């Protein structure tokens, strides 16, 4: 009985971290998606742009996310010009540092996924859009992006799940999201197994909901392939 009480109390405490976990995921994924789209378009439309983007992807995909978070959290404050800049009130906050690192990292992966999606857009569908007099913007909005996103969605779903889990690294820059709270409880109670099981269950539920949402979106965007 006492065991169940402990699990229940732990669960309640951990659930207090869910808003931060979800907030970090949603914020970084949203910012990452916008940046990824810009990177993918830059890569597709200019040669120097492509070189720049592949360098960006190389760096952010090739180094550990934890290192990137530490780099921004501990590193940014060392530069006087950063401390003097208007961004400092933001970069001083661990929440912003973690969000920034997660978004930059996500953008690197998502832009690669989107690039594959763009490459899979059938030429004929684009040509049909041109033939009916679509402007380039309309063509992008109504034909190219929906098809590219539809093609990229299964891979992007994996990336979203990875992002949910990656937010646990934010606990290492003092943020009390689900893993951070779990760690705090363990340091008081030394009951690592129970606490981490509860935390794991929360991540599972979050990712289950996310997987369902992606599946619904896939169905809404129409059949895969051509």
């Amino acid at each position: 009985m006492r065991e169940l009480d402990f699990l229940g109390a732990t669960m309640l405490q951990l659930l207090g971290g869910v808003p931060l976990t979800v907030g970090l995921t949603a914020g970084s994924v949203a910012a990452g998606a916008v940046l990824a789209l810009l990177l993918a378009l830059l890569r597709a439309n200019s040669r120097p742009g492509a070189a720049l983007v592949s360098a960006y992807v190389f760096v952010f995909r090739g180094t550990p996310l934890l290192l990137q978070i530490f780099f921004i959290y501990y590193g940014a404050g060392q530069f006087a010009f950063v401390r003097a800049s208007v961004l400092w009130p933001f970069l001083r906050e661990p929440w912003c540092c973690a969000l920034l690192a997660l978004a930059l990292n996500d953008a690197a992966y998502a832009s690669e996924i989107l690039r594959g999606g763009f490459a899979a857009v059938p030429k004929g569908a684009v040509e049909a859009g041109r033939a009916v007099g679509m402007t380039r913007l309309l063509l992008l909005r109504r034909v190219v992006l929906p098809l590219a996103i539809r093609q990229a969605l299964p891979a992007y779903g994996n990336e979203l799940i990875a992002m949910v889990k990656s937010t646990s690294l934010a606990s290492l820059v003092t943020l009390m999201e689900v893993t951070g709270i779990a760690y705090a409880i363990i340091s008081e109670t030394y009951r690592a197994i129970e606490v981490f099981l509860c935390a794991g269950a929360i991540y599972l539920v979050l990712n289950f909901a996310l997987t369902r949402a992606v599946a619904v979106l896939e169905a809404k965007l129409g059949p895969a392939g051509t």
Partner: protein
Amino acid sequence: MSEAVIEVRAVRKRFGAHEVLRGVSLTAHQGDVVAIIGASGSGKSTLLRCIPLLEAPDEGEIVIGGERLDPANRHQVERVRATLGFVFQSFNLWPHRTVLGNVIEAPVHVQRRPRGECVAEAEALLAKVGLADKRDAWPNELSGGQQQRAAIARARAMRPRALLFDEPTSALDPELVGEVLRVIRALAEEGRTMLIVTHEMSFAADVSSRAIFLDDGVIAEEGPPGQIFRDPATERCRAFVRRHLERHLGR
């Protein structure tokens, strides 16, 4: 004589070292059905694609409804393209939209007409090509012949002043050719202005009001279908038509 709907003036087009069109001119008036025939590589598809500037001619002019197209003026080109219906060899339906979605896409988003009106019109167009019951199907659920008929309904949804067909039956299994040709024939009988690039000689002979034989990037012969298909003046055209009619009868 009525006003010319489509005028092609001395168009030249080169891909790399190969000059595909070497000075081609043609005029289509209201109600004309122009069949464009010729061997593979003679430039007939390129010629058709030059009309809405899907390919930009290197030289020469395209005039649509009296308006000369300026390839640098993207706004004008887009506006004029919306007045021409183009039917592709490989259908090119949008795979992420249903059949109805394909048909109403351009009227709603390019012409910005009211959605309800576009849906009603699209349903009538789909009924006309025999696809009323397929309005909610995805393109990949249709046969090639059904996809091409849907593509014809899509091209007509813009209320175009002319329809351009680029080998509309060449990608189809032989048993599906007939259903698409019947739809095109019905349009010809309604007096629509059409340019048809095709290898279906007997069909072209039947529906066209004028035929053009393209050979190696120039118009080698042009005239009423009775002349082109039954009594060509040039030896090249005679040989080409005979070869194709034989193949047709043989199958």
